[in-house]
């Protein structure tokens, strides 16, 4: 059993007991425990189930690489799935539950998959579920959905807040082990602004656990002295609980700080995302131990040797009373020694190497530990917990020569440097034959803006595993980083670390090396995703030669640990199956983040009301007070309609349409884009931008214009007013102002930079109100101040003047077909003007109307709307707007594009009106079907609806649409199927449904 030892534990405070629950069971731990350590102290080795076979899973590791011990944490608004117990700090009141099982952790029905494992090999998902086709929808998918997914999705809104912060430094050091500390010291002493980040809550990394001596003193003393010196430097920032998880272009680093994970509800943000710009990045991220592949290596109780050592030394937790150590290197003997020194039993060290000579094995021997050389674990005994191991020859095929009773196994397959930060931006790796791992290739680093190396690897992360080499390498890395930035490192002797000499390790990829299929089927590579040696070998037999393809096919390394434990073993097995060298097979791509990052941290404060900036018109508060129902238009919020008590939105829209057509409507049109184009060449410029001629527009007049992109497809439309000899005001769509302004600037700056033209986007400088309806003129006359008669201000003209004391510019333009004035006033006077219009308009039946009423009225008139009738593939000619496309101009943007032959095809879908035979409304987005089917067996189509509304004016459904040869087919009937069956028949008619001759707007 696993238990708390009576003495020791360098990280725990035995005076501060913490209570927590696991699956409802009350347990006790100490301050300083990780959740994993506390669970082990309470003999809770079984903590979860694997993804595919639902096999029992125990704690394997002691850090970020843990694949198994993931739990649901917290409750309600603080519920989080898939939390790694090995990096979760224990706090009083913590609640955790295990995941991926039903009905309980101890008894899981899903474990039947385990017995069917031979029928669920690699690529199972790709080979099954294909026939019969109907079975996917009704049988396979529901079952797969039921059993898929790891952890539960939180149901409540996140109760916590998150924040983001920016930081800048010369040298960012990732990793606060002895290497990171030394690199930070050297760079800091040289005067560099240094940020040193450590993922754990404490400093020092592995050195204190491994009993390293630095300059004749324990590593702890070095760590303490280094921290004291670094803290005293003003140019150095230290941060624990902060994981540098990604390196990006030009020294950009993202780091996640766990601010209040361990103190939930204390008012601080749960997490803080650091966005750091660094001149150089020192990657001192250490190394991760690899498992060994032997049969039953996934049974709870089998752990990494370094993790066993961590639990004993850091938290005074023994994973088992009797621990068998299995290894291919000297380092694992540290675990055997640590266990023995803690008073625990180590029945044997199983070493795959035939000759074991190093200092550490010698010390183990001296402690009386039995060492079996040239040996292998043939099989682990037990199901929910290790009960023993069968051992045999490593060179053999798996015949057991002896069984050893034990309740834990500590395995070590060697160490892999954590090269993630080095590799994120393209740093290349070399295969180190002696240590059997990939390490950074200093000759091919990731580079920054000026072509120099951006990341410098240091210590174990650079493959310098022995403590002596590690510190010397880190010293070099810190100096290199400072020098690269033009700083001069101080001359100082690097501290010297002493550690026992280690003999060469021997790569062991499967154990024993001649194991047959039965054993290989029980050798786990990826614990979480249940990928075994046999699966990778099967993939190789089936022709998968690329490591990237094999990863996707077998799901090796695709679990939440992203292959931190399994990848090297997996690709070694693949290389062996392919008879290739490991470096030739290569690694999969390392992508950020290094460990999973909470989405909340990435979102930061950008959620809820401040998810994105809102644009409000000067009259917004009035609309809100009226209870307007808003809709988003770009970043604007515009009233969709103004429902009255008891009215549905639909009823409100119908009332607004009828009232505007019969009496008077007021629209807040302030969002309309307004761009001033001014200069001696402004007319020439607008002639290039618009499809029709704007240079000939007389001062005082307005003209409707279309803008196309170079392909000849419609991009925006609006009314242009000539203000004076060299000034035009271009109205754009509400959502298009910024885009069109940028478009104008692009052409002016990059193509016609010698043209004398200035543009200014004045959209927000003006409030604009449309006064619409038969009573519009009466209202303006009542306000008084300028002549708005038909004679003084005819249709499509504008005039400056005063209305009711407001300075204004009045445009006689109409998007509704009614008598209409659009009146612009300075934004600061918008609200007062709007109120004045509403007050004075009461006697004429004035009512505000929203965007939906505007849409219905423009559709009744057959006016197009950018984004409804257009979608980036529609030309003005498709919309029968030939009259607005100049034939005289030699050139304008889109002219050449429109001349492409396929755009002249008479079969193109063109704009028509659609009148349903039964008066109903055609569903939005419906397609008109044509006889026959296409190559995919789908019905042929001959058109689609672009705008469809109920017209309260005509009391029937009306629509606009693009139909094949539409304008030639007036009076014909087309058919629109409805979702859920049935269809609507519609007659092709003119798109102008109302006031065809335009008499009403012209009164």
């Amino acid at each position, binding site marked *: 059993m696993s238990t708390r030892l009576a003495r020791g534990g360098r990280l725990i405070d035995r005076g501060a007991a913490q209570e927590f629950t696991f699956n409802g069971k009350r347990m006790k731990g100490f301050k300083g425990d990780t959740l994993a350590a506390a669970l082990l102290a309470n003999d809770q080795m079984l903590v979860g189930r694997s993804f595919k076979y639902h096999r029992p899973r125990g704690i394997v590791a002691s850090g970020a690489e843990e694949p198994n011990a993931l739990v649901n944490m917290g409750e309600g608004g603080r519920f989080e799935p898939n939390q790694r117990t090995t990096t979760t700090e224990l706090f009083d009141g913590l609640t955790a539950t295990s995941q991926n099982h039903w009905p309980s952790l101890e008894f899981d029905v899903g474990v039947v998959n385990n017995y069917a494992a031979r029928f669920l090999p690699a690529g199972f998902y790709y080979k099954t579920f294909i026939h019969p086709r109907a079975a996917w929808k009704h049988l396979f998918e529901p079952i797969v959905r039921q059993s898929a997914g790891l952890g539960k999705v939180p149901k409540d809104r996140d109760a916590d807040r998150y924040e983001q912060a920016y930081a800048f430094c010369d040298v960012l050091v990732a990793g606060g082990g002895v290497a990171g500390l030394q690199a930070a010291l050297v760079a800091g002493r040289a005067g560099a602004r240094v940020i040193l980040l450590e993922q754990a809550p404490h400093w020092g990394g592995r050195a204190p656990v491994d009993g390293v001596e630095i300059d004749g003193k324990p590593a702890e003393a070095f760590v303490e002295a280094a921290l004291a010196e670094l803290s005293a430097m003003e140019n150095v920032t230290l941060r624990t609980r902060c994981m540098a998880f990604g390196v990006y*272009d030009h020294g950009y680093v993202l780091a996640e700080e766990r601010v209040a994970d361990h103190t939930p509800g204390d008012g601080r943000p749960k997490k803080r995302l650091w966005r750091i710009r660094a001149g150089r990045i020192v990657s001192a991220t250490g190394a991760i131990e690899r498992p060994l592949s032997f049969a039953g290596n996934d049974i709870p109780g089998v752990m990494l040797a370094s993790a066993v050592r961590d639990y004993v030394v850091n938290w005074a937790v023994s994973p088992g009373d009797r621990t068998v150590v299995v290894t291919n290197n000297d380092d694992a003997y540290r675990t055997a020694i640590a266990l023995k020194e803690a008073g625990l039993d180590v029945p044997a060290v199983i070493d795959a190497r035939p000759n074991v000579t190093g200092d550490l094995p010698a010390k183990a021997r001296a402690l009386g530990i039995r060492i079996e050389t040239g040996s292998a674990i043939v099989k682990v005994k037990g199901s929910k917990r290790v009960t023993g191991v069968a051992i045999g020859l490593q060179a053999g095929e798996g015949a057991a020569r002896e069984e050893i009773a034990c309740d834990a196994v500590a395995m070590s397959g060697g160490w892999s440097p954590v090269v993630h930060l080095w590799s994120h931006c393209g740093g290349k790796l070399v295969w180190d034959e002696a240590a059997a791992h990939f390490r950074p290739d200093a000759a091919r680093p990731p580079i920054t803006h000026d072509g120099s190396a951006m990341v410098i690897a240091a210590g174990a992360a650079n493959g310098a595993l022995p403590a002596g080499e590690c510190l010397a390498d880190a010293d070099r890395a810190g100096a290199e980083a400072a020098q690269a930035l033009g700083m001069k490192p101080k001359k100082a002797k690097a501290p010297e670390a002493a550690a026992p000499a280690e003999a060469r390790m021997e790569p062991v990829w499967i154990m024993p090396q001649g194991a047959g299929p039965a054993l290989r089927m029980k050798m786990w590579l990826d614990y979480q995703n249940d990928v075994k040696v046999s699966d990778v070998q099967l993939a190789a037999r089936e022709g998968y030669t690329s490591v990237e393809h094999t990863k996707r096919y077998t799901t090796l390394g695709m679990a939440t640990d992203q292959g931190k434990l399994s990848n090297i073993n997996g690709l070694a097995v693949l290389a062996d199956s392919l008879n290739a060298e490991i470096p030739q097979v290569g690694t999969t791509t390392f992508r950020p983040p290094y460990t999973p990052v909470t989405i909340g941290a990435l979102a930061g404060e950008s959620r809820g009301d401040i998810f994105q900036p809102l644009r409000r018109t000067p009259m917004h508060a009035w609309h809100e007070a009226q209870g307007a129902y808003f809709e988003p238009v770009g970043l604007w919020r515009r009233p969709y309609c103004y429902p009255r008590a008891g009215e549905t939105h639909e009823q409100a829209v119908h009332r607004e349409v009828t009232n505007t057509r019969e009496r008077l409507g007021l629209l807040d049109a302030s969002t309309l884009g307004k761009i001033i184009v001014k200069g001696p060449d402004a007319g020439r410029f607008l002639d290039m931008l618009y499809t029709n001629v704007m240079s000939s527009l007389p001062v005082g007049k307005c003209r409707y214009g279309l803008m196309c992109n170079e392909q000849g497809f419609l991009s925006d439309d609006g009314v242009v007013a000539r203000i004076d000899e060299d000034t035009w005001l271009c109205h754009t769509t509400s959502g298009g102002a910024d885009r069109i302004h940028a478009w104008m600037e692009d052409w002016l*700056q990059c193509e016609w930079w010698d043209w004398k033209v200035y543009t200014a986007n004045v959209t927000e400088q003006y409030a604009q109100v449309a006064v619409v309806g038969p009573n519009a003129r009466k209202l303006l006359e009542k306000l008084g101040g300028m002549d708005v008669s038909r004679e003084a201000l005819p249709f499509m003209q504008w005039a400056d003047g005063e209305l009711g004391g407001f300075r204004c510019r009045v445009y006689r333009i109409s998007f509704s077909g009614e008598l209409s004035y659009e009146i612009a006033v300075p934004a600061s006077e918008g609200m007062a003007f709007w109120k004045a219009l509403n007050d004075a308009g009461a006697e004429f039946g004035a009512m505000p109307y929203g965007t939906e009423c505007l849409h219905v009225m423009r559709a009744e008139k057959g006016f197009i709307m950018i984004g409804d009738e257009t979608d980036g593939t529609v030309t003005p000619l498709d919309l029968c707007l030939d009259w607005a496309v100049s034939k005289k101009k030699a050139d304008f943007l889109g002219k050449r594009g429109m001349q492409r032959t396929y755009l002249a095809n008479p079969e193109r879908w063109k704009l028509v009106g659609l009148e349903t035979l039964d008066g109903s409304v055609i569903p939005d987005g419906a397609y008109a079907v044509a006889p026959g089917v296409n190559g995919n067996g789908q019905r042929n189509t001959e058109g689609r609806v672009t705008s469809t509304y109920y017209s309260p004016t005509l009391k029937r459904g009306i629509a606009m649409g693009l139909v094949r040869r539409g304008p030639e087919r007036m009076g014909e009937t087309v058919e629109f199927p409805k979702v859920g069956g049935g269809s609507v028949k519609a007659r092709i008619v003119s798109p102008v449904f109302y006031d065809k001759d335009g008499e009403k707007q012209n009164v």
Partner: protein
Amino acid sequence: MLILECPCCGVKAEETELSPGGEAHLKRFGPGSSDEEFEAYMFARKNPKGVHFERWRHAYGCGKWFLAARCTATLEVFGTYPAQTSEPPADIVAKIKAKRPDWKGYK
């Protein structure tokens, strides 16, 4: 996230301040051009793995367009320069040639 120096205002701007505008030094083909010329102007882009000339706008800064020469594979920036030119400045071309002897030129 790239950092590019705006040649107009001198700010070393982070990518979030910039908006990209695709390949630089394209020649516009309008009415009268052949189908091949127009197709190439509209759709054919070099998309190299290596030295590339791009248009960027300091959209959330001074608003000016500028051009950048950089390596798409390593993200090394050789230089930025104003947009009012039809070919890269000689000093930037010389710098690229020195760093990338195999480079075949911007055309």
